[in-house]
């Protein structure tokens, strides 16, 4: 009798689990449409001032909106403003919309707009966007619905800044009332976006509800609630997509691409991303200060083998130009022609040996490659390169570091006794902040970015390149600016301070019961669910 009771109890328990699981993860429990989205980690904060990574942007973009955004071809278009223009090379004027409301139903005012932009300049806030404003001298309301931003000197790339999180509008009253807590799990933030912050359970999930006061009545979404679940394990992500417990994922390891392609219920979209992966040789450290050494290494790397065995379909073979075609928003045909003329990397051991023989280290040398332990594919690439270089008697030791340790080196925060960057070679990545060739050329090659907080991690220094890049920054005539960038690229391609092995591809996996609408998925600043629709 006892045994029978025991068995009955166990069956009842499992049945109750089954009953619970069918309601908790349903798309339309209680007629509520729930969108389950995967994230790789917690957002830094629910605040545009810190929305600079995929997880933070994914959440913050649903709650707050920026003054500008991008068209599907990555060109700029107004969003919370009606129009914008540069009245002179140092003055940008924005006509702000007068029909926008925050999620609490109150109207967005010019005070909110000016406050939202100016808060990035507040040293105590420590906004990640602070660097965008280094050239800004004033942010002022110059009309009832007009904002004027003045720059210290001409800056052609300023046009892109307010299409990032730096241009997102938050409610001034809310931020002042919750000073010190804005963006935390306890209060979140108030913006004008299609969804409203509801809850953030650190390490588990973020929940947003539909904004009943959303100002943009053309929005098509029928989603009532979004649950962003934090999953970092590859197997769990794949299982969740396959079982339908997750509907969308942007942020999974490239190693999962092949697995997800095999799921019948999941559609995988891919596009040319805005990132590049590369070896950054420390051009200020011997023997990498010699172009012959850099070229010898470039010719000795078998990129076909790297793609056949490691990267496969998850990327696009890098070539001599340090940028992907996603950045060719101005004079795209001319850039494509340039790429075609210059070709890509060539694997030629004889040439590699010739270049090395002409260098100061003809018999080879030892060096160290730093790679992030968080990027397993980059580690595998480093292993192939390590093998390739043995043919030149170059011994590369691979050292794995945490991602933040790699950042510390990459951003010039660790120097050796001679005051130069303290590494031989980094295997790392760079993502452009905006779709323009300058977004890669200036940070990665200008000597001005060699110091602390700078992104010139090859420690590359060439007076002519610096001069051309500096001139391009202050040139507002786009054709003339592109001319300058092409001339800089001629020198950079010849010098090869970096070996760009991969043009990253972006991937989005989504359940076939959903449609994405007109969302521009190629740019993280634009990941917005206002047109996402459940059709199941």
């Amino acid at each position, binding site marked *: 009798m006892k045994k029978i009771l025991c068995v009955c109890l166990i069956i009842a328990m499992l049945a109750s689990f089954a009953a619970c699981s069918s309601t908790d993860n349903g798309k339309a429990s209680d007629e509520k449409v729930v969108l389950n989205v995967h994230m790789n980690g917690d957002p830094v904060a629910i605040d545009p001032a810190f929305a600079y990574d995929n997880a933070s942007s994914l959440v913050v973009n649903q709650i707050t909106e920026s003054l500008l955004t991008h068209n599907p071809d990555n060109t700029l278009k107004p969003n919370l403003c009606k129009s914008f223009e540069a009245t002179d090379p140092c003055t940008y004027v924005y006509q702000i919309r007068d029909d926008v409301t925050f999620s609490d139903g109150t109207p967005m005012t010019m005070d909110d707009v000016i406050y939202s932009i100016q808060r990035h300049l507040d040293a105590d806030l420590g906004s990640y966007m602070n660097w965008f404003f280094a050239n800004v001298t004033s942010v002022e309301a110059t009309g009832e619905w007009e904002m004027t931003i003045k720059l210290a000197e001409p800056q052609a790339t300023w046009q892109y800044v307010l299409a990032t999180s730096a241009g997102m509008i938050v409610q001034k009253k809310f931020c002042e009332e919750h000073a010190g807590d804005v963006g935390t799990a306890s209060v979140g933030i108030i913006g004008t976006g299609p969804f409203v912050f509801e809850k953030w359970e650190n*390490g588990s999930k973020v929940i947003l509800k539909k904004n009943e006061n959303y100002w943009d009545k053309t929005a098509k979404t029928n989603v009532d609630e979004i649950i962003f679940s934090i999953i*970092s394990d590859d197997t*769990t992500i794949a299982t969740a997509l396959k079982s339908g417990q997750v509907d969308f994922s942007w942020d999974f390891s490239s190693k999962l691409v092949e697995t997800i392609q095999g799921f019948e219920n999941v559609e995988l979209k891919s596009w040319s991303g805005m990132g590049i992966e590369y070896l950054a040789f420390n051009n200020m450290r011997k023997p990498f200060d010699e172009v012959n050494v850099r070229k010898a290494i470039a010719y000795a790397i078998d990129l076909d083998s790297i793609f056949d065995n490691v990267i496969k379909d998850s990327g696009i073979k890098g070539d001599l130009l340090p940028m992907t075609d996603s950045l060719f928003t101005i004079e795209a045909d001319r850039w494509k022609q340039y790429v075609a003329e210059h070709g890509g990397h060539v694997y030629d051991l004889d040439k590699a040996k010739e270049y090395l023989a002409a260098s100061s280290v003809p018999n080879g040398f030892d060096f160290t490659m730093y790679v992030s332990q968080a990027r397993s594919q980059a580690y595998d690439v480093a292993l192939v390169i390590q093998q390739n270089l043995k043919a030149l008697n170059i011994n590369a030791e691979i050292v794995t*570091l945490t991602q933040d340790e790699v950042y*510390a080196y990459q*951003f010039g925060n*660790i120097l050796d006794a001679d005051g130069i960057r303290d590494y031989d070679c980094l295997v790392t990545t760079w993502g452009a902040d905006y779709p323009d060739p300058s977004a890669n050329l200036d940070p990665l090659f200008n000597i001005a970015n060699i110091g602390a*907080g700078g992104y010139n991690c090859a420690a590359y220094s060439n007076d002519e390149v610096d001069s051309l890049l500096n001139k391009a920054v202050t040139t507002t005539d786009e054709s003339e600016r592109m001319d300058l960038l092409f001339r800089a690229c001629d020198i950079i391609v010849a010098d090869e301070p970096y070996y760009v092995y991969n043009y990253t591809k972006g991937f989005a996996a989504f359940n076939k019961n959903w449609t994405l609408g007109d969302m521009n998925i190629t740019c993280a600043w634009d990941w917005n669910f206002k047109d996402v629709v459940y059709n199941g």
Partner: protein
Amino acid sequence: MFRYVSKRVIQLVIVFFIVSILIFAVVRMTPLDPIASISKGKAMSEETRLALMREYDLDKSWAGQYFSWIGGLFRGDLGKSFQYREAVSDLLSVRYKTSVQLVAMSTVMIVFLAIPLGVISAAHKNSLLDQTLTVTSLVFVSSPPFFTGILLMLLFTMVWPIFPTFGTGSDFWSNMKYLFLPSVSLAAVRIALSMRITRSNMVEQLQAPYIQTATAKGLSRRTIVYKHALKNAAIPIMTVTALDISGMLGGSVLVEKVFSLNGVGSLLADSITKSDYPVTQSITLIMVLVFMLCNLFVDIMYGIIDPRVRLD
């Protein structure tokens, strides 16, 4: 007994402070600029940099930072996370519930499965049942918790989808469903080990002379096994179970990662990979403290149960 306990507590305090210094020093041996970690490498004005250094106590010397941290520990202030820009104590107050419930559910499984199975196995020594349980326990002992977790996840989502694959519920009871598979994964190795220990202790006890006396007196087999033998075998089993609890805190790190649970273990793993010093050092120290307290509890229990230990 008071002297014995006082001696153990003083030892614990000394070890605690030595360990705290070691932890503090070790996490700072990595090549890292904390400001770059806080700002995710973004360029910033010197003014912002100085403001961040003040906010995170980084303008103090290492000694100043240590005393600020250890002093704050007693006030419940463990500093501010680089990664989340929130107080570490706030993060822990959210995360500890999942870990405590996970370990509690695993402990219940260990106690209610390992001990009865070990007793049954010993009582039916060399039978088919005993051999089956022995082989099964060997399989689980050989399978690390994260691997068991992955297998369970695939089984219960692809084949028999009655459990959620990841995450936690909104309250204690809904968490039972979410934490069932992780608890099984975490407990499986320890159930197998505790079962083996229970079995070997029971076998030893069942061969003792007092059992023969009890049998000769005509006591039933059930009374002999459960009332006499198990009582005497229970002491080492309790010790192992108490140590299992502290061991599971460490073991939960990978299980929490696999099942995407927002526990202290996954927070620790993330903090290590993201070089979040304040979180890493605080959780490590708390784990060490829990481990030491469990050991202290076991020591005191030994002292109570076996007075000879106190004389040592």
